[in-house]
């Protein structure tokens, strides 16, 4: 393995990070929206979200990626590999995030909500100032956990030709006829990404006011 091989796998890491960040940025709020639909028991939509979450949680990432990349053109929507990959990853992570947000919503203390109501806070203010900050704190560990799982499922998008870490390592292995070193390097990169994520969670948790941590 020469310097260029290391560089090409590192570029794959950039692609992995890009796809993960994009799908997380889209998937976390989307999951919250879905959880709110379930929480508020919006008629019909509630059932649809339930079916969506159940279906996607049992759907392999590879199959979902293939479905989106190959089937959408049948309906006149042609996506390049990168947007298709981001879409597939977002759809899958949103379903898992929905369950995490929903668990936090169910455990949200009712009396606080009632107290905010007694102070005549309008609905949006109630949600923004009372519910969301606590919800965020309760969900953060679960969300970060899901993010690490999300990063580990990004190699699925390699099936539609995206060169992320795993595929870049595979290419180097195919060129040098020695697959072990690139795979070990890839493993180190994945470990590094997950480590950074977990450290970020610690930093965010520490920045929160002391009384909130108790």
């Amino acid at each position, binding site marked *: 393995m020469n310097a260029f091989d290391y560089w090409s796998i590192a570029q794959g890491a950039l692609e992995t990070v890009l796809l993960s960040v994009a799908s997380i940025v889209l998937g976390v709020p989307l999951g919250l929206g879905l959880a709110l639909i379930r929480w508020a028991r919006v008629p019909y939509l509630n059932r649809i979200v339930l079916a969506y979450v159940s279906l996607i*949680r*049992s759907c392999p990432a590879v*199959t979902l990626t293939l479905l989106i990349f190959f089937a959408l053109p049948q309906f006149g929507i042609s996506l390049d590999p990168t947007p298709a990959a981001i879409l597939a990853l977002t759809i899958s992570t949103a379903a898992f995030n929905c369950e995490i947000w929903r668990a936090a919503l169910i455990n949200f203390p009712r009396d606080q909500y009632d107290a905010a109501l007694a102070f005549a806070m309008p609905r949006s203010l109630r949600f923004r100032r009372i519910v969301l900050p606590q919800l965020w704190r309760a969900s953060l560990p679960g969300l970060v956990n899901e993010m690490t799982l999300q990063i580990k499922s990004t190699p699925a998008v390699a099936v539609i030709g995206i060169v992320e*870490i795993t595929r870049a390592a595979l290419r180097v292995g195919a060129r040098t006829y020695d697959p*072990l070193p690139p795979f070990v390097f890839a493993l180190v990169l*994945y470990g590094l990404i997950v480590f950074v994520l977990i450290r970020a969670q610690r930093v965010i948790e520490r920045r929160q006011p002391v009384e909130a941590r108790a």
Partner: protein
Amino acid sequence: MTEHFLIVWQQRADVLSGLLDTLGLLAVAALASLLLGALLAPALMSKRPAIAHIAVLYVDAMRCAPFLLFVYLIYFGLPSAGIRLSNWWAGAIALILYNTAYMAELLRGAWAGLPAPMIEAARAYGFHGFGLVRRIILPQVFTVALPMIGNQLVQIVKDSAFLTVIAVGELTHQMNGIQATYFIPFAAFITAVLLYWAICLVIEGGSGLLSRFAEERRA
């Protein structure tokens, strides 16, 4: 669109073989990884630091690695070590070794949560060593861990779809073949997704049923 699903129906032999292949992988991987996980879990909790360190290192390494990377490692790595396997077995072994780590970890969690007085009482009645583990500890560990084992089985089903990259003839691979031959991507992959859904609903239903059965027997 309907005729597309008709084509899938005409290819039902291939679909069925893919489905059976996925189920076969699930059965082999689930049984083997549960068994190995049950053997690894005591090692994780071992009082000898050397054994515990090695076990923890293995579990953590597996939990850091994406499954696809591990599949490639097994598929390309084993022949370098002089072991030649069919694609199916290479995939099955990757599934087994990968999920063993997760099974061991969740069994360890359930084990650590067992009430200590129960085990002390068993010791007072003369249970010790393997008899204690088999008669007293394991049945309870499995009862507590059952829902999590169910989740892990769903994870095995989802991971098995990755094996299409090393040309294992499982469900996604068969559907991709049908899709490419007749150019019916939507019908083919939706069928696959629905079949995966069905498998996972059966797993969830089964683990729920077993949980209830275990509760009733204990009562």
